[in-house]
């Protein structure tokens, strides 16, 4: 009689991804604190391990980071470049398992179930994967191997950087007995306070209260927490799917309702989004405008075009029209636009269709090529100066 193979989920987390890419590309940055993020009202996207020693963390306001680590090198993120590196990482992962779920630009889950039938030492296999990622990208990553997703994610964080942590099936109960509840994904500040008042410090402590108690206390999140405390996580590894939209947004230095400023930002965003679409060979039909007001309320407005586009002008003009139709008088804290509904749908041509101007596509392609070669600031359209 054969038994079903034990489930194994691997979680990969690139170590200080953006900062490591910058340090890889620029030797002068190596060994120095590097902080990715820009502007005075922005936040830290990520930072190198050298910067973390000064207390700098992801999502921290840049102003705070500057206070903690003024000597750091501050670098504006190069998202398109990180995307490319990320794709290389994903290619390596796909050579190990057909079931790869990209959770973010620098994180992924792999279903390793059954691989121990091929190679009994799953740790050795994981280490080989880690070495291959290093070879392909020059970057280090940390890996966690566990029976379920959330444990794999916790495990990958245990020996950073460049660690491989294997949490065997038989070790799960003991692991949960000593796992601080704050480590469970989803337990944030608010839930942490609730757990603190109940003297729930470790995952196993959660089981002191029945399922119904947690449901009453925290709703669906309570049920999930009760499951996690038993090492249960029913979420499968869902293979990566193509992105469904491209977007860009900006938070203003100071809230504004100035139509000229808003239009300028929309144009800059249309350029960024258009360039990414063109690079990926994609066109989208739905343009979405996002506005966050000074009171932090947020609205989106969308328009679906008869034909898909990746032309900067069309994206910009559609978003601008949506902005004008809004007749907004409030000051905006953030404005953004996105393009979705990728792909052309077959449509009947019209007697009065205006043909696409090939010069526009040519202009976009030329600007894309110049920026690719000389950097994003190499050439700027007059209207956003």
């Amino acid at each position, binding site marked *: 009689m054969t038994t079903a193979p034990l489930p194994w989920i691997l979680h990969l987390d690139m170590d200080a991804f953006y900062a490591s890419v910058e340090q890889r590309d620029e030797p002068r940055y190596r060994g120095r604190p590097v902080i990715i993020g820009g502007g005075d009202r922005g936040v830290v996207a990520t930072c190198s391990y050298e910067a973390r020693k000064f207390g700098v963390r992801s999502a921290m306001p840049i102003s705070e980071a500057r206070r903690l680590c003024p000597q750091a090198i501050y670098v504006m993120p190069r998202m398109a470049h990180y995307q490319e590196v990320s794709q290389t990482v994903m290619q390596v992962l796909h050579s190990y398992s057909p079931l790869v779920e990209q959770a973010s630009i620098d994180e992924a889950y792999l279903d390793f179930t059954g691989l121990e039938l091929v190679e009994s030492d799953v740790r050795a296999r994981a280490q080989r994967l880690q070495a291959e990622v290093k070879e392909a990208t020059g970057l280090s990553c940390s890996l966690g191997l566990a029976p379920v997703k959330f444990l794999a994610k916790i495990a990958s964080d245990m020996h950073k950087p460049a660690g491989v942590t294997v949490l065997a099936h038989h070790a799960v109960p003991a692991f949960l007995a000593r796992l601080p509840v704050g480590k469970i994904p989803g337990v944030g500040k608010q839930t942490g306070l609730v757990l603190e008042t109940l003297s729930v410090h470790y995952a196993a402590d959660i089981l002191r209260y029945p399922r119904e108690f947690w449901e009453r206390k925290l709703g669906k999140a309570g049920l999930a927490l009760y499951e996690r405390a038993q090492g249960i996580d029913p979420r499968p590894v869902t293979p990566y799917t193509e992105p469904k939209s491209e977007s860009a947004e900006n938070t203003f230095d100071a809230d504004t309702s100035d139509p000229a400023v808003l239009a300028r930002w929309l144009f800059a965003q249309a350029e960024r989004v258009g360039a990414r679409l063109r690079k990926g060979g994609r066109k989208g039909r739905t343009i979405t405008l996002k506005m966050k007001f000074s009171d932090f309320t947020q609205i989106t407005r969308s328009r679906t075009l008869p034909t898909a586009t990746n032309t900067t002008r069309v994206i910009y003009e559609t978003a601008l029209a949506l902005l004008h139709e809004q007749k907004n008088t409030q000051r905006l804290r953030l404005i953004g636009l996105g393009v979705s509904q990728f792909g052309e749908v*077959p449509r009947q*041509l019209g007697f*009065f269709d205006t043909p696409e101007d090939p010069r526009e596509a040519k202009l976009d392609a030329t600007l894309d090529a110049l920026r690719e070669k000389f950097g994003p600031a190499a050439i700027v359209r007059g209207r956003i100066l």
Partner: protein
Amino acid sequence: MLIQIQKEDVIEGLQKAASIIPQKTGAAYLRSIWLRAEGNKLELLSTDSNIEFRGSYTATVKQEGLLGVQGRAFVELIRRLPAGEITLRADEAASVLHIEQGRRQYKLPTNDKTWFQSFSDFPESGAVMWSGDFLQELIDRVNFCIGEEGLEAIACMILKPAANEKIEAAGMNGHQFAMIRFSNDELRGLLPPNGILIQKKYLNEMKKWLGIDEIDVNLDEKRLYLRTTDKKESLSLPLSAYQYPDYHTFLARLDAPEVASLEISRGEAQEALQRILIFNTESNRCTYFQLTPTEVILTAAGQDVGSATETLDVAYHGAVERIAFPTHNLLSLLDHFNSAKLTLSLTGSEGPCGVRGEDDAEYLVIIMPMKILDDTQFSEEQV
């Protein structure tokens, strides 16, 4: 009012009057059919505030009068009564109309006759005679191309004087166009130089009303009037005053020397397209035409519905190698021709395509093709 009518004399007129009444309206005036008893006639009048119907029918009038009744209820009641004599008696004090037939008695509330508004009279001067049958056919052959939505101007049929002493009737939406040219000197003389525009919704009402008999037609600045030659029934409707798009720009493209020409059998194409339609989906509703000098290969495919390929013998010359049309629209277009053989003039794979038939003199339909997308179909095969 006190009159006696024969159901058979009035029921058709009543149904025509009722069809004009709007389905939903808050105005009692518009929900009404007006009955006017005068001499030895019962006149029925109804309107939706734009289109007006008047019909005059034989009745024994014992007491003349005018009243309005809730149209749909009144017509439905008369329709359901057995054939024979029906007495209509108004009780003005009680504002009700008594409807009696033998031992059957009904009462319907009536509208105050002060609510009655005059209907347009058919202008006798300058009226011309036209074939109802031909007008019906003309509407049928143009109307299917007229848009339901979009620009108001193109939700109309245009009827205008054309070159060579002809009249042209044309209709279009954004993707299709139909035009028929015909001769009628009297009517041509009646039309203003820029022609008249009749909204699609009125064309539908006209078509319902028209019979095969000849009719009198007249115009004034704002309305078109149609009347049976026995003067018993008339219909009048408002004309539209939009700027109609200049369709001659794309008509001219069909006669350029580089235009490709495809001769096909209408019947064979219809049958093939009906089968191909099965393989169309909501997201892919077209048939692809692969053109060679002697054959056209028709294909359609959908990710979940399979694929269809048919080959038709044709005579083709031209540079267009591949073109796609929405299958349903193409079928509808073919249904409006009578000819066994049709000639398609292709101005390009993304340009207008004109369709003419050898037995459909002066009839032209233009259809715009589909935007051809590079479509990749995936299939798995055992190798």
